[in-house]
């Protein structure tokens, strides 16, 4: 199996990946409005303000939408897997995989509560996955 496709952090995103390596889900928010956003960038996409800060998100989310890929990408193994989007408690959506749960429509119900878990993939990268809350 070829090595899994992994992100290459940039100066604007490195804090996110450093946080992931420590097991922290980091978002950013506008310090004036408090609105959180994702993916990382050094300004608020709603207002253009550079007065933003990084903060640790709760890691809680709900399953927002997904597909179950029946033709796995070579680096993803041989079994079908869900490509999911979760809606974080703080508002933003993010793509992820759902772990600790069968990859079936029956097990993957929209709006089910989830929580973040990190899986170390290399010396510098841990990927944020989500598992059913309390599982």
């Amino acid at each position, binding site marked *: 199996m070829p090595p899994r496709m992994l992100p290459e952090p940039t100066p604007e995103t490195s804090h996110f990946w450093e946080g992931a390596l420590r097991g922290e889900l980091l978002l950013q928010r506008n310090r004036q409005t408090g609105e959180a956003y994702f993916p990382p960038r050094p300004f608020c996409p709603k207002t253009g303000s550079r007065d933003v800060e990084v903060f640790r998100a709760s890691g809680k989310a709900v399953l927002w939408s997904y597909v179950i890929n029946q033709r796995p990408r070579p680096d*993803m193994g041989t079994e079908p897997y869900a490509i999911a*989007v979760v809606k974080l408690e703080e508002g933003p959506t993010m*793509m992820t995989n759902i772990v600790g749960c069968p990859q079936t429509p029956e097990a993957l119900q929209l709006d089910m509560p989830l929580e973040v878990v990190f899986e170390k993939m290399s010396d510098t990268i841990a990927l944020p996955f989500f598992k059913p809350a309390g599982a």
Partner: protein
Amino acid sequence: MKPKSVAVVGAAETTKMGKIPDVSVIGLHADAALNAMADAGLTPADIDGVATAGISPVELAHYLGIVPTYADGTQVGGCSFMLHVRHAAAAINAGLAKTILITHGESGRSRVGAGGFPRSPASLSGQFEMPFGPAGPPTMFTVPVLRYLKTYGLSVEDLAQVAVIQREWAAKNPRASFKDPITIDDVLNADMIAWPFTKLMCCLVTDGGGALILTSADRAKDFPQKPVYVLGTGESVETPMVSQMYDFTSSTAFKVSGKKAFETAGISHADVDHLMIYDAFAHLPLYGLEDLGFVKPGEAAAFIRERNTAIGGKLPLNTNGGGLSYMHSGMYGMYALQESVRQMRGIAPAQVPGAKISVSHGVGGMFAASGTIIFSNEAP
């Protein structure tokens, strides 16, 4: 006639369509371009503006021996050609060029001389989507759909219905890739690609191309073909990451583009006789009908189920069979435009009797971009 009107005076697809292993990408562009020039009674020396996507307008111009005063390389995916038409209309009115050629060619199936679409692992999509296993459009464009279905209480059968009715249109089109009738069960029982999407809810992968030639409406009357006038245009872009759509039940880019096109055309939805909505996957016509304002949010599935978009319905939709049954080389927007032009010329295989206004609506990327062109065969 309104001042500053622009018209299509040349339109053609590639000589062959479907599987063309003996022609490269640039060759498909050129074949379509030469066919469109023949249609308009022109040669490359008459063209002073070029626009294309997939390859660079430099490659196109030099290959055809054109030395243009205008070049547009806007590349936002499959609706790039709608944006090219819009920009060409503005350019003609601004005096940047008089006769603009827009081409598409793609060896989607045979991959002859075709490039790839690498995503840098440092791009935002490369960092925040690709690590989670997307394997091309069937696993990305489809991601928002379960949320859409749940929001409006719809089912997978509602997606299947789209493919069934478009196959009925394709049966009337001799050039369509697939013409045999299908049922909802056929669609649901087809190979599963990315649950809930089966193969028959996904577009074809074929080879082909198309080209358009535009000029000012006052010159258009001197050309051999009946002019097809550009009444209104719109465009927008939204996100390079499907996971970051503003709303999973609606395309913001569709809404912005469609609204602008209807406003500039000065028409209402009731005036529309024929509609093309780029259908890379079965959910696109649902989003399109709603976001363009033909029906209210959540009503498109019932509108299609009640056969309003089918043969004999009040709003014939994707009358060539669409990307699901006609052809889809990768950037299908050009074929939607071609079918609108055929309908306005009165020469479509599944001609809508008496059609006077056609809307051609495209999507680019995975809900990344949008372009809308409103055509008429009556001078504005």
